[in-house]
């Protein structure tokens, strides 16, 4: 009970901060706040886009809860999404169109594997060499983001387009739209299924149970003969896989290509969503809804202004700040 009260308090604080910020910054505060709140529900287009954003956030956040539950910190989400997205786009361009739905699945599987692999490296390094996963995942991601930037802007660039992006993947591989003309596709189903199955695994299955024991108290895990190696590497793999899936879904459902910088902070948002949800994959769904609403609201309220990206970052920051400060006696193991 207390946790929900804390979360509510933190969200109220964040909302107050946002309102305050808009009051100072906007020439017409009431109007801006109004369109921020109502914007996403104004028409099917914005509403669909909000749900599309939410789908991606659900997957990122649900994946992140697994790391957090195991007491691990994956700071490489940006690189994992970006690389997986590029991998998905490249596979989509290489595969023959005739493969159809099988091709789509293949793209998703490969993208997921790419994300898992990148995060898994950090998990392995932590287990084998005690290299802090927070640092190693960030560094690897930092290197990859620039490398993918390079690939998109140079060898893989679609020279006919204006955007810095790869060529678009064939129609056959794209996910079916739900609310045209918005970006919402069946990705939403994948998102809900991912969150639900992770929650089921975490709370109803043996592996998830062992992971929670390991995350809350490693000594107790040793008491119960729970293998240390598995639960250092596996959570990173799962988180990475989710980020990878999110990356490919973005390509398959909204971008249709790997566009320069398309990750746009989803890596950080995954962390925020997981923290708001108190690391429960099911609660990630409402948390993602909340954050997607905010993001879409900002985009509509500030349309035409180049500030929406900065504004989202500020709000992300405020939310992270207010959420972590409630985590009295954080469950995270002490830093090595």
């Amino acid at each position, binding site marked *: 009970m207390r946790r929900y009260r804390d979360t509510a308090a933190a969200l109220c604080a964040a909302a107050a901060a946002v309102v305050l*910020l808009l009051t*100072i*910054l906007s020439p017409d505060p009431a109007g801006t706040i109004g369109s921020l709140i109502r914007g996403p529900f104004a028409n099917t287009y914005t509403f669909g886009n909000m749900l599309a954003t939410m789908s991606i956030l659900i997957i990122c956040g649900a994946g992140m809860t697994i790391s957090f539950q195991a007491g691990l*910190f994956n*700071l490489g989400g940006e690189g994992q999404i970006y690389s997986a997205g590029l991998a998905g786009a490249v596979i989509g361009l290489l595969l023959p169109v005739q493969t159809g739905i099988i091709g789509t699945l293949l793209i998703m599987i490969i993208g997921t594997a790419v994300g898992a692999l990148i995060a898994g490296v950090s998990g392995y*390094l932590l287990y*084998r*060499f*005690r*290299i802090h996963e*927070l*640092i*190693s995942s*960030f*560094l*690897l991601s*930092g*290197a*990859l*983001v*620039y*490398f993918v*930037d*390079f690939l998109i*802007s*140079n060898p893989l660039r679609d020279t006919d387009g204006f955007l810095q992006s790869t060529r678009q993947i064939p129609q056959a591989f794209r996910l079916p739209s739900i609310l045209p003309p918005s970006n919402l596709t069946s990705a939403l189903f994948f998102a809900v299924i991912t969150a639900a199955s992770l929650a089921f695994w975490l709370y109803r299955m043996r592996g998830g149970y062992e992971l929670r024991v390991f995350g809350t108290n490693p000594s107790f895990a040793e008491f119960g003969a729970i293998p240390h190696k598995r639960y250092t590497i596996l959570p990173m793999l799962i988180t990475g896989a989710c980020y990878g899936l999110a990356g490919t879904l973005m390509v398959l459902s909204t971008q249709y290509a790997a566009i320069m910088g398309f990750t746009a*902070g989803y890596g*950080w948002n995954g*962390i925020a969503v997981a*923290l708001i949800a108190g690391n429960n994959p099911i609660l990630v769904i409402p948390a993602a809804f909340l954050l997607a609403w905010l993001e879409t609201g900002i985009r509509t309220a500030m349309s035409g*202004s*180049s*500030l929406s990206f*900065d*504004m*989202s*970052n*500020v709000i*992300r*920051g*405020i*939310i*992270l*700040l207010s*959420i*972590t*400060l*409630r*985590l*009295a*006696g*954080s469950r*995270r193991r002490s830093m090595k």
Partner: protein
Amino acid sequence: MTYSILAYGIPILLAAIGGYLTDISGKMNIALEGLIMVGAFTAYGVMAATSSYLLAFTAAALVPALISAGYETLTTVYHGNIFVTGLAVNLLLPGLTALLSVRIYASSGVLSLQTDHMLSSVTLLQIITVITLIVFVTAYGILHQTKAGLLLRAAGLNRRAFEIRGGSPDAVQRTAFALSGLLCGLSGAYLTLSLHAFVPNISSGKGWLALAAIYLGDRRLSGLVYAALFFSVAEYAANRAQGLFDMPASLFLGFPFLITFLGLFVKAMFRSRRNDHKKP
């Protein structure tokens, strides 16, 4: 060549020294990137208003120092996770500078400084190099020659032992955070003033590289210099290579991260092999 290496390396080195101080105090400040941005923006604001380099540098040092110590205090008081709050501050600060830039100067783009007595970039680099030299020598001296440095190291080595001997680790860490903010501020101020303008994302990852430098430098003060030098030589070489072989710049942007990652990996591998030999 010296100019470009120093111009790239000095801001990283300054921020890295700040980060290093927090690291050895037992709690690492990962918000260096955001603090550099604040320093850069503050320097622009004060310079535009007063045309005084001295005031610009001073203000640019103080504001991030206050923010840094403030967020550390908040984290301690409310039992937050310093990495999450650091991350939050890193997202918050660059965004805030952009919003403020629109609010005050009605522009979200480049803000140029137009004052009469602008120093040339070379002069400014000389000044900042001297400042960095002084900072480095002072930091070295404080850390290894004075009681203050001893307390800083001790608080990071064993918090409990420090408390029992009558010290307050929280106070030490707060001081370290303030100092890291101060140094990041200087670094940001230099970026703005030498460019004669404030540009969004002017720090372009220098704060993260500074963090990486701490690890690459093997958590030693002298190691920071090598790491910063290494980054700037790599950057210089990349620029040259780009010009010579017509290679795209973006290929090399991620280079420092990659190198640091590999460096960490190789170091850990050697360490573990050494330990394997030690075991019977």
